[in-house]
């Protein structure tokens, strides 16, 4: 920090990435100003959602994480494959889910982010809310600070953690606008329901939670539905490709309502009370959307702004990566002595932690774009179940497995079955 600078580090955006960087920097004695446009940190943020907490533990330590306002420890995974004729559900309870390294929790971001912001203030970091960064300040080709209300505020390093659109990273010339072919639109309701009812309906013990995913609920459009159990509410929503929405009659909120009121869904939430409706875009391009370089002299880009999101099919994973990238940025600033060295360290840490994970899932976006996944396969799955389980008065029972295979061949086609299987094997 020099005479002209207001702080060592200015962080743009009070989401989980920006807060993570701020926490670590403040803890290590750096002067930090975090700027958030919302009234409080988290007031503009939403998630499905669940967070895998391995990186959060690294940031806060196990005992602090235990104090954090997380909702329920997810121990139960459900996947429902739905068609107009039926629902096939798979339920998996993982004994490893409670082990330290695998833990994930349902989370409400407005609550969690505000809590983390308080922790940063306790450590001496400054959180400015209701502040919108208009643009970056450049001096001699380097990023020297930010402009708010026409006024320049300078710092040694600026961290852009301004989310999926990241106008800041765009302004810095580090990334192009999002690839429209690879965004999903998520909408969600928070439905209040008593803790006991949730435990009962999902067969859960106190403090335990379920993640329930739904395929075939978006009327053939690319996407799916989800339910996450919070302590005393349920997060229920859908994610749909907005471009496909445009080509048809139904609005996104109508699709959400139709999903919510389906026979296989409504009993889980009935008598509940809707208390919030939210929407957010999600980047589904994976590694492809991560810019080649995430820094300029004086500027680091982290979290969603850097494209650190993985669509794993069963879940869209971004928050644990956001924490990780916040840690990486803070570590780089804490260990390096020049702006150039900070950038080198940041890219090194990123390449060691986040990129290999994203590399692993790099073929998924293509796999998940398969249109048959959202209609033909769910229909075939349920038709096969029908063949296996149903008995009527007239029919000589079919050899159910053979029958099922016939159904799959007929409704999807041998060629597509072969190609899709190949694509799946290649991607995993």
């Amino acid at each position, binding site marked *: 920090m020099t005479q002209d600078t207001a702080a060592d580090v200015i962080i743009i955006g009070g989401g989980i990435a920006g807060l993570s960087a701020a926490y670590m920097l403040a803890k290590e004695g750096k002067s930090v100003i975090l700027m958030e*446009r*919302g*009234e*409080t940190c*988290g*007031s*503009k*943020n*939403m*998630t499905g959602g669940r967070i895998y907490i391995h990186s959060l533990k690294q940031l806060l330590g196990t005992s602090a994480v235990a104090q954090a306002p997380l909702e329920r420890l997810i121990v139960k995974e459900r996947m429902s494959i739905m068609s107009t004729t039926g629902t096939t559900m798979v339920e998996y309870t993982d004994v490893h889910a409670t082990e330290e390294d695998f833990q994930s929790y349902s989370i*409400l*971001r*407005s*609550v*969690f*982010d505000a809590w983390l912001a308080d922790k940063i203030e306790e450590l001496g970091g400054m959180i400015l*809310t*209701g502040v*919108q960064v208009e643009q970056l300040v450049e001096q001699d080709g380097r990023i020297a600070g930010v402009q708010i209300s026409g006024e320049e505020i300078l710092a040694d390093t600026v961290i852009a953690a301004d989310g*999926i*659109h990241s106008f800041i990273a765009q302004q810095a010339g580090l990334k192009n606008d*999002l690839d*429209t072919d690879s*965004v999903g*639109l998520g*909408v969600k*309701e*928070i*439905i209040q329901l008593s803790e006991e009812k949730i435990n009962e309906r999902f067969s859960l013990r106190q403090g335990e939670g379920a993640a329930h995913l739904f395929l075939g609920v978006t009327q053939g459009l690319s996407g799916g539905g989800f339910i996450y159990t919070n302590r005393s*509410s349920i997060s229920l929503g859908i994610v749909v490709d*907005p*471009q496909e*929405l*445009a080509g*048809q*009659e*139904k*609005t*996104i*909120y109508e699709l959400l*309502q*139709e999903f*919510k*009121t389906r026979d296989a869904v409504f009993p889980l*939430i*009935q*008598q*509940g*009370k*809707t*208390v*919030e*409706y*939210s*929407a*957010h*875009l999600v980047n589904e391009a994976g590694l492809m959307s991560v810019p080649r370089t995430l820094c300029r002299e004086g500027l680091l880009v982290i979290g969603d702004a850097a494209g650190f999101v993985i669509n794993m099919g069963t879940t869209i994973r971004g928050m644990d990566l956001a924490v990780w990238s916040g840690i990486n940025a803070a570590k780089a600033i804490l260990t390096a002595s020049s702006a150039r060295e900070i950038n080198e360290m940041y890219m090194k840490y990123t390449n060691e932690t986040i990129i290999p994970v994203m590399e692993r899932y790099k073929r998924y976006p293509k796999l998940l774009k398969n249109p048959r996944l959202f209609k033909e396969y769910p229909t075939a799955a349920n038709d096969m179940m029908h063949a296996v389980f149903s008995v009527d008065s007239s029919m000589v029972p079919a050899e159910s497995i053979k029958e099922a295979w016939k159904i799959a061949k007929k409704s999807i086609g041998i060629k597509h079955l072969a190609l899709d299987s190949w694509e799946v094997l290649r991607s995993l």
Partner: protein
Amino acid sequence: MTTKYTSIEDLLACDRFHTDEKHPHIVVDSRRCAACTSRPCLTSCPAHLYTQDLQDGSLHFDHLGCLECGTCRFVCAVMGKQGIIQWSYPKRTSGVQYRYG
């Protein structure tokens, strides 16, 4: 409200907003929208802020109730007629304020 099939008005009524009626953060050019036949904004805006006049078919937009997702920005640019000529976040603390998120 006890949950059921819910209208968009009732969904948005659950949310807390600080409204700034004077300064729309999204500005549309009505001439461009009039010429747009695909109107991808109609079904993809989660707050249903883009509506079509039943009588003359013209496109209406209201910035109040915006959830700030930015979907319109993309679909308009790619599939529409670039009728959104300004897209920014609401100023200061106005706009949606999630309590759960």
